[in-house]
């Protein structure tokens, strides 16, 4: 794809002024890192505050009429009538085989006394999902006039609280609507780094002001997609296109905790017959964490081999972990492989020994309720 064909996020010039390096990602021209580099940004998020502009992601508001609920429930395995309001729910858009068309964050929020499903979805899946929404639901609004900003790290609460005055009851996965500059910010205590943090949906025109206030008054730096990826791998979180895709269902991907089990008995869910069988069957593959013995970096699509050099799995995500100071990776292996024997990855015509690691690689640091 040529650069002309790439879309730009609203604050592109702001990032340029802050020495962002850009890459093409899912059709967007996106900051991969700023002047400090990926490793320093990563460590800063684990110790202080990092600010990620993830405005490339899809945001949509769907009024929760009975018709829309029924349509959404035909491909989203949540009980939309009964899920708690002001809470983010990790879920999926599924195809009729149970394959994951996308993973999403869905929250039920109230705006002007009406209930909406507010969904955040992957930029690489916008085309497919927007087609589905167009075909199945009505009166929705695809949000184009808001940025999506993730503020992550152990100091992110104090950084935001001094500006927005957050309710003390706000814990991990809560979402609130808060006034800022005559604007309503949808702010959730969530993110993708394994750290305490927040995601803010905020009007384009107000975003720069908020970012400046946070950057000027805190030990906060701008961070790009590079550190976002190594942070999410350390936290063991799945990425669409790596750990999950149209050919994996949530159960195979080790994400059955995100399924509403009652919905698997509901014929309105397009793949309930398949998933309800799948959940009782023994899985053939399992998700594992890995690290190499030698100084190499695990990267996606490397094959995992056993002692006989037979393929038993593959790496879905890999990176250098700035916290553990070695490479880490996630992958899938055949569940019946003999794990008492040594395992290897094939790197540049050499067999490199790898070993199993616990996921997450680095302890999560969420602010859970008492």
């Amino acid at each position, binding site marked *: 794809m040529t650069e002309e064909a790439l879309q730009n996020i609203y604050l592109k010039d702001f990032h340029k002024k802050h020495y962002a*390096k850009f890459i093409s990602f899912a059709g967007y021209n996106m900051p*991969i*890192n700023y002047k400090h*580099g*990926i*490793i320093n940004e990563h460590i800063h998020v684990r110790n202080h505050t990092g600010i990620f502009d993830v405005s490339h992601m899809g945001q949509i508001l769907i009024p929760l009429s009975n018709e829309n609920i029924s349509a959404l429930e035909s491909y989203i395995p949540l009980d939309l009538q009964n899920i708690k309001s002001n809470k983010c729910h990790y879920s999926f858009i599924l195809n009729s085989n149970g394959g994951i068309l996308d993973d999403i964050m869905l929250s039920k929020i109230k705006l002007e006394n009406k209930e909406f499903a507010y969904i955040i979805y992957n930029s690489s899946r916008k085309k497919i999902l927007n087609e589905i929404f167009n075909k199945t639901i009505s009166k929705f609004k695809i949000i184009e006039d808001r940025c999506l900003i993730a503020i992550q790290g152990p100091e992110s609460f104090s950084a935001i609280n001094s500006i927005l005055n957050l309710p003390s009851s706000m814990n991990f996965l809560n979402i609130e609507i808060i006034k800022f500059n005559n604007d309503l910010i949808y702010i959730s205590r969530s993110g993708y780094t394994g750290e305490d943090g927040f995601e803010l949906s905020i009007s384009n025109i107000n975003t720069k002001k908020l970012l400046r206030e946070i950057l000027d008054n805190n030990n906060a730096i701008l961070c790009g997609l*590079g550190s976002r990826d*190594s942070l999410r791998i350390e936290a063991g979180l799945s990425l669409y296109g790596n750990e999950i895709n149209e050919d994996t269902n949530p159960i195979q991907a080790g994400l059955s905790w995100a399924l509403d089990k009652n919905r698997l008995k509901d014929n309105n869910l397009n793949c309930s017959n398949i998933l309800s069988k799948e959940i009782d069957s023994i899985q053939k593959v399992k998700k594992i964490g890995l690290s190499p013995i030698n*100084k*190499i*970096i695990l*990267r996606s699509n490397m094959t995992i081999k056993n002692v006989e050099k037979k393929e038993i799995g593959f790496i879905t995500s890999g*990176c*250098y972990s700035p916290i553990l100071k070695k490479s880490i990776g996630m992958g899938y292996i055949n569940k019946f492989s003999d794990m008492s024997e040594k395992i290897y990855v094939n790197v*540049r015509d050499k067999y490199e020994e790898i070993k199993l690691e616990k996921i997450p690689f680095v302890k999560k640091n969420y602010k859970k309720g008492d």
Partner: protein
Amino acid sequence: MAEKKYTEEHEWVKLDGDTVTVGITNHAQESLGDIVFIDLPAVGKQVKAKEELLVIESVKAASDIYSPLDGEVTEINDNLSNDASIINQDSENEGWIFKLKICNSDQYNSLMSLEQYLKFLEK
């Protein structure tokens, strides 16, 4: 000691007697990003120009580094095995990677001057 010469593979080459010192340019280290590991070649290895000689692993990707000239590896920068980020900090001095005893000075002379390399970068 001669001025540095440069390759289209973004390496610098510095001649001293019949031996060249080789590293990657500042432009190369900037585009690679944070370098974490380097897989150094064995001393004594015979190589041809443009042959893959070693691999640099940055946070973003694994990159092959090619030999700029025909020759034999006589020395490697062992400091890089413990801390490959030296290349990010000082790619054109402390971050040198290997030394090569060369046999063909015509090959060396045909490499780019700094001025030519800077023009090459603008392309």
